[in-house]
């Protein structure tokens, strides 16, 4: 067999080349066997590929190869205008569908949860008279656990990527990391069902975070005009089948999701901007805003029709904070220091939440990694949540008169007739309703003891719940914890000041909610606007901003935000805004991977197949070098070609010999590459016969002739900037003779991180 040796020849040659260059660096390292370590935060997983956003080879706008030039010559002005119109149509569809999905979730959750609470309430009422409340407890726990079991089974066994809120995943996607399965239709279905089941199952979760993921999946699906899960191709929007366009639409979808969840269209746009933007332009922003508005309007009109008052458009989001009037709940300037203090408290509590969740997640990754265990864990959490709720209600002696209150499921239990248990309004309800109750119930509907116990319990429950294998968000639980202690704070404040001016605890509940949420997720601009829009009161913008700012500063002093933490724990090569500050001394030569597997401009098919099927080097892009056939001399860099392109070439058997033989064979078009996107077949599925292995393949027509390169002496921050700003996937490092020395990929950059003791280097791990 000649093939391996030919591959190795090139490898060796470039290796020799390197040894000449970096002779002084070479040190004698003992040969290490690949060793196993327990999972920790200082790892980067090889599972995640970078999606090429502006990558020269996948993005045909920039890949100025000959095929692209040909296509550009064919497209005229009208065609470009049609494309622009199509973009708007797609955005409208994203908005409408996201809104409808949100409606669906809302209506189903409302009905199923209502059914559950009615059954349990009936049972409790029955057993309160006769005795035997332990059966009610068992019924409640079993109901919760079984509903959650279904929700957890579908997530754990069918689509694990649908677990959690999905915000970290979308953040990674927008950052440029391709997480497998994250924008598939199957994920959407599992996500929606999972959210419904986990909220109905009474877990301490919300349905708002997953809306963002759902919106993103919808956007990705629509903009491609087909679904690979359903194996249907609608033959529309084919122009958008590439990463750049898809990413634009995904950010629109995420914005539409936020807007449907909170009734906050501007907040949605800003969320996309804050979380996803490495580049931004006005037209895109305007389109995203359009999608957001359509989404919240759709939700609003459908829900109004559903609630029977068709024309008043009173429910713009999944969660409504209710009306915050200026007369009743306005704030004065003296209260601002108090709000800032609440921000500090929120920051500390948020940091505590994150730290606890960090340990828990680490434990889960290490020990609870089998799907069955994950399902059992979710069921246990559900049962315990019900039990804790029941015990709290059982022990509470806080009774409030039922007249004039707006409790959905008043539980009497041991209260006098005509009164209800006040603890039950907090626990015996969906979390959204509890939040709104805490904001708006009249002063005095909760006594401080109830609130204190509730905060404490719910804090631990929510912390325990986040990271389970169910799809659920952390927004609402955080708001709920914050609203509870905020209200407690407000009550004690008015008690201390003898109830003078700051009477209404509702606004303190709001500030507490903002502080807690800010302390946990550490979002800034977008969260301020989301909260502002959800309250519908612009004057609250200033205190909310101050509170979130303080919470972020205080929280960042201890640990990082929940989403960043989870991204790090999943070993995703995530690129932050800037390179680590102390990294200027590192040069591209130290950062890059070397040696590089290069291809020649006219390469033997057998060599290509062997390189592609080599499992140990799962490279995605290959530099194409000039070399005269017959000689082993490696000349300068000529271009860059992607694995996916090579596969398409092999599939269509575009070989030099065949081209000569049959002139009738149609020429390969750009469309052939586009049709294969985004799931290119694996190399194993392509059959290449022994004869064909000896053929030659001419890459010059298909490679990107002008890849981005840097000299070896470029510093890490420079390389980083190129990656972040251009969304690169590969960067070729060349020496001064334009010969390939190494290759920088996203992982090579993401592995440097600023830790507690200066610059840290993460290790690569296989998962």
């Amino acid at each position, binding site marked *: 067999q000649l093939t391996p040796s030919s591959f190795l020849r090139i490898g060796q040659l470039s290796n020799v080349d390197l040894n000449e260059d970096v002779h002084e660096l070479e040190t004698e*390292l003992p040969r290490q066997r690949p060793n196993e370590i327990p999972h920790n935060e200082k790892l980067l997983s*090889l599972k995640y590929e970078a999606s090429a956003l502006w990558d020269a080879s996948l993005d045909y706008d920039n890949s100025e190869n000959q095929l692209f030039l040909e296509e550009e010559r064919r497209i005229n002005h009208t065609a470009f205008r049609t494309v622009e119109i199509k973009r708007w149509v797609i955005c409208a569809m994203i908005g409408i569908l996201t809104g409808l999905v949100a409606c669906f979730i809302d209506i189903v959750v409302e009905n199923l949860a209502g059914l559950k609470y009615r059954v349990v309430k009936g049972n409790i009422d029955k057993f309160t008279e006769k005795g035997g409340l332990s059966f009610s407890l068992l019924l409640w726990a079993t109901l919760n656990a079984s509903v959650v079991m279904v929700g957890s089974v579908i997530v754990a066994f069918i689509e694990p990527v649908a677990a959690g809120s999905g915000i970290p995943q979308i953040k990674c996607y927008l950052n440029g990391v391709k997480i497998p399965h994250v924008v598939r239709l199957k994920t959407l279905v599992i996500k929606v069902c999972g959210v419904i089941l986990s909220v109905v199952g009474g877990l301490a979760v919300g349905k708002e975070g997953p809306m963002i993921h759902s919106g993103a999946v919808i956007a990705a699906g629509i903009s491609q005009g087909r679904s690979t899960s359903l194996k249907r191709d609608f033959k529309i929007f084919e122009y958008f089948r590439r990463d750049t366009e898809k990413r634009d639409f995904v950010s629109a979808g995420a914005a539409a999701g936020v807007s449907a969840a909170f009734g906050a269209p501007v907040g949605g746009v800003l969320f996309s901007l804050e979380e996803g933007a490495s580049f931004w332009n006005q037209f895109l922003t305007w389109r995203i805003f359009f999608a957001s508005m359509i989404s919240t309007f759709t939700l609003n009109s459908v829900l109004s029709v559903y609630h029977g008052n068709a024309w008043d458009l009173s429910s713009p989001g999944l969660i409504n904070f209710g009306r915050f009037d200026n007369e009743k709940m306005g704030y004065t300037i003296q209260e601002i220091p108090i709000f800032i203090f609440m921000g500090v408290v929120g920051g500390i509590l948020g940091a505590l939440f994150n730290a606890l969740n960090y340990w828990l997640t680490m434990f889960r990754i290490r020990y609870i990694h089998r799907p069955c265990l994950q399902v059992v864990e979710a069921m246990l959490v559900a*049962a315990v949540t019900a*039990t804790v709720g029941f015990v709290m209600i059982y022990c509470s002696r806080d009774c409030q008169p039922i007249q004039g209150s707006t409790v959905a499921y008043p539980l009497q239990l041991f209260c006098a007739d*005509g009164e209800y248990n006040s603890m039950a309004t907090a626990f015996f309800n969906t979390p959204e309703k509890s939040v709104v109750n805490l904001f708006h119930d009249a002063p005095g509907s909760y006594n401080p003891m109830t609130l204190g116990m509730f905060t404490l319990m719910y804090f631990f429950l929510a912390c325990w719940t986040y990271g389970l294998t169910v799809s659920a968000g952390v927004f609402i639980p955080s708001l709920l914890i914050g609203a509870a202690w905020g209200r407690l704070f407000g009550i004690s404040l008015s008690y201390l000041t003898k109830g003078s001016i700051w009477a209404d605890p509702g606004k303190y509940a709001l500030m507490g909610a903002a502080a807690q949420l800010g302390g946990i997720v550490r979002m800034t601009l977008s969260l301020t606007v989301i909260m502002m829009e959800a309250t519908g009161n612009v004057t609250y913008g200033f205190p909310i901003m101050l509170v979130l700012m303080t919470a972020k500063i205080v929280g960042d002093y201890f640990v990082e935000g929940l989403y960043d933490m989870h991204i790090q724990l999943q070993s995703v090569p995530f690129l932050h805004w800037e390179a680590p500050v102390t990294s200027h001394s590192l040069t591209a030569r130290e950062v890059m991977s070397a040696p590089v597997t290069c291809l020649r401009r006219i390469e033997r098919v057998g060599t290509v197949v062997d390189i592609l099927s080599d499992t140990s080097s799962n490279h995605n892009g290959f530099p194409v070098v000039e070399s005269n056939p017959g000689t082993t001399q490696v000349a300068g860099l000529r271009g860059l070609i992607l694995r996916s392109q090579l596969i398409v070439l092999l599939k269509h058997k575009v070989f030099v010999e065949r081209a000569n033989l049959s002139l009738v064979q149609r020429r390969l078009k750009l469309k052939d590459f586009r049709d294969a996107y985004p799931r290119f077949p694996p190399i194993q599925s392509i059959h290449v016969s022994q004869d064909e292995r000896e053929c030659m393949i001419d890459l010059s027509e298909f490679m990107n002739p002008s890849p981005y390169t840097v000299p070896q002496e470029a510093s890490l921050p420079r390389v980083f900037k190129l990656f972040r700003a251009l969304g690169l996937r590969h960067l070729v490092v060349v020496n001064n003779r334009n010969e390939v020395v190494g290759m920088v990929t996203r992982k090579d950059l993401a592995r440097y991180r600023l830790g507690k003791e200066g610059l840290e280097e993460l290790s690569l791990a296989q998962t």
Partner: protein
Amino acid sequence: MAPLRCLVLLPALALALGPAAAEGSRRLPALEALGQAEELAEELWGAGLPGDLPELEPECRQLLADFAEGSAALTGCLGRSARPVRLCQACHRHYRHLLAQYGNIARAVGNSSESHNCAKSILTSDRLQIVVTLSDFFNETWEAANCPNCLKNNSEGLSNSTVEFLDLFNKSLTCFEHNLQGQTIHLSVNNYTEVCKNCNKTYKMLNDLYNNLQRTNRQGGESGHSAHLCIDVEDAMNITRKLWSRTFNCSVPCSDTVPVIAVSSFILFLPIVFYLSSFLHSKQKKRILILPKRIQSNASLVNIQEKYS
């Protein structure tokens, strides 16, 4: 007849029901006289206006006087039946009258030209618009009390269910009264077992009827109507419930703390077992480290390649 019954109830009940009821109808004679004098003066002033200033047509003045009388009557009625709440039962006639009178004013065009019609001059010719304000106030109060809920559809008289409820309510009050006779409240505070035993049936019936009413109201009432029953019924039920469970301490639920503690501690114990066992028995997930292909580790790469060749 309900207010009358209140007067003859035991002192404790009267205390619970509120002292306002007993004194509702008493008015200070001096104040009355003063008011009459003022009215007289007003009439003189109104009548004394010369005809050359056509302030108000006589029939308009009549309408206005009717409205004033009606609103006075309604106000009196509302005030008298404020505690215990009997608004809807006692005042629905007054309210209907007032509505009709207001309607007369609003519809009255008068016999003169367009510029002088009654509706215009009474309702909209000044800034204060006191007639409109009054009428709005009454309407709002009526709505807030949810009175239409216990009246018949044409607002004539109480609806059947309300009558039934009030009958039952009176019956249970009578029952309380009977069973409390011969006991002095101040001495035996906790000794209400007699009441609890004997009136349990009536009370349960009343309670069930109330719950039924509430349920039908919630189902029948579209989103426009609020979920509340009318204030009379709500208040009556409220009073009875308070008496029953606070004053008489009749509803003593079975508290079975031991089984609840047992079951809940069992459930709370499960996660500990789960985590411990998965910590001890589950194989810890190991990550396989991959050596990066970097320049520093060239030596090892050379090694790999030597092995191949």
